[in-house]
């Protein structure tokens, strides 16, 4: 059974090529995926991300519950509206999912989790919510549009009623507000994204999502598919759940150490395993690769290093760079000259820091 978002017919009218994505019938591209990518880097593009799962947590002890559930520390969320990127881990320190936590009120936090892991996530959250008296409510009545790119904010703000534009313009990065949208539609406006560009992710009732999409389209925002979303987030150095990490991988092994908060006395799920792995030595690490030769790095290709074999996780062609980049999981140690096995040929690659692209430009050292 394939799920459809409210925008399904709109995508088809626009001539989108549709694919199955985690059980959802979603647009991979409307025309040229590369043009959609550039539209987001240079102007504004929009993605239907209604397949993502909004979960509201309510109850007096919600913050306590989140201190236990997620590996980053929700005490960093001091002001209502602030957002936090984090992983939730299993007892072995493996990543159950990555998600964004929004602090709305002391007794009300909102989570946005991945579509493909929805069932598992909800079961996991509910299993642990009980002892904190927290109620877990999925919100399938909402759709979501990500509007991304250097002109994304001004374009969307231009569609809002005049008296709320200033408020929307002042919204800081990684924060959200509830605000009146065009024609009175209620919006949950978050200055977050998955492209490395500025912009908003907008949660809107299903009944208004097509209307908002059409208004944005008329305002010049280019529809962009999941294909462009993937190349944009890869260039921006952002992990994809299921490809770069899963339940068998710890955040140490997935370049997610920056999301782990080993603050004094907080017993989050998976902490003991993480500390033990750190003490005994993390065996694998995630690195960025750039290939200067022609060809494309792909998920599953073998990576050859002086420290042993690794594998390509997310890999692909980076339109902003005009060459291929990838994340790879490799053994910890001196890597030496690194090569990737592409159809039996050992092709040299460079190990680099990521993100590969920031603010629309290649990072120093990525393109020779």
């Amino acid at each position, binding site marked *: 059974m394939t799920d459809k978002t409210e925008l399904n017919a709109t995508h088809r009218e626009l001539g989108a*090529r549709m694919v199955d994505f985690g059980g959802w019938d979603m647009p*991979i*591209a409307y025309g*040229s*995926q*590369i043009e959609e990518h550039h539209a987001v880097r240079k102007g504004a593009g929009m993605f239907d991300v209604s397949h993502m799962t909004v979960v509201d947590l309510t109850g007096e002890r919600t913050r306590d519950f989140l201190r236990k559930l997620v590996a980053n520390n929700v005490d960093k969320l001091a002001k209502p509206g602030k957002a936090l990127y984090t992983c939730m881990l299993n007892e072995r320190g493996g990543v159950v999912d990555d998600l964004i936590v929004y602090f709305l009120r002391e007794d009300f936090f909102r989570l946005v989790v991945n579509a493909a892991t929805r069932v598992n996530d909800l079961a996991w959250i509910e299993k642990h919510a009980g002892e904190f008296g927290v109620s877990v409510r999925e919100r399938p009545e909402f759709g979501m549009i990500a509007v991304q790119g250097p002109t994304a904010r001004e374009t969307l703000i231009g569609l809002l009623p005049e008296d709320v534009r200033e408020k929307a313009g002042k919204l800081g990065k990684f924060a959200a507000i509830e605000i009146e949208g065009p024609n009175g539609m209620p919006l949950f406006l978050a200055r977050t994204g998955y492209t490395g560009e500025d912009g908003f992710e907008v949660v809107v009732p299903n009944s208004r999502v097509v209307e908002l999409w059409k208004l944005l389209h008329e305002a010049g925002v280019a529809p962009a598919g999941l*294909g462009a979303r993937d*190349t944009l987030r890869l260039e921006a150095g952002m992990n994809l759940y299921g490809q770069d990490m899963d339940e068998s991988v710890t955040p140490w092994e997935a370049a997610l150490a920056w999301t782990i908060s080993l603050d004094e006395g907080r017993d989050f799920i998976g902490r003991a395993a993480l500390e033990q792995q750190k003490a005994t030595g993390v065996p694998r690490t995630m690195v960025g690769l750039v290939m200067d030769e*022609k*060809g*494309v790095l*792909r998920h599953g290709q073998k990576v050859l290093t002086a420290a042993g074999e690794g594998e390509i996780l997310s890999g*692909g*062609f980076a*339109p902003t760079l005009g060459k291929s980049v990838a994340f790879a999981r490799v053994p910890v140690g001196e890597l030496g000259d690194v090569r990737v096995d592409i*159809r039996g040929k050992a092709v040299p690659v460079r190990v680099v820091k990521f993100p590969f692209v920031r603010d629309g430009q290649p990072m120093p050292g990525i393109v020779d």
Partner: protein
Amino acid sequence: MNDIPGDLKFAKSHEWARVEEDGTVTVGISDHAQSSLGDLVYVELPEVGATPKQGDGVAVVESVKAASDIYTPVSGEVIEVNTALSDKPETINEDAFGRGWIFKLKISDKAELDELLTPDDYAQVAENDDH
């Protein structure tokens, strides 16, 4: 919609073959195939002088989405490859049946051409592929 030139023959695996006036055979991929693959970013061309058999994988086209093997629709000797594709693989997206040709063969068994699909039959294959 069928915009396929009438002088082409097709393999089910979406390659086209055209017999030129001098008897050589030019090979490319169909417009349907390029559209399914999306933006092409790399083409691995066959070696001139190679002698593949019908159905052998001889080239690879890579789009942003995926890598795809190109099988030769007939047996023969590769006599020319479209080197322009190395720098401009997107030519296949722009003109799959023309400037986006991939290689030329000296065919070894003309009877193999009869096994290929007509444009109309191939149009059916492509259409079914979409469902």
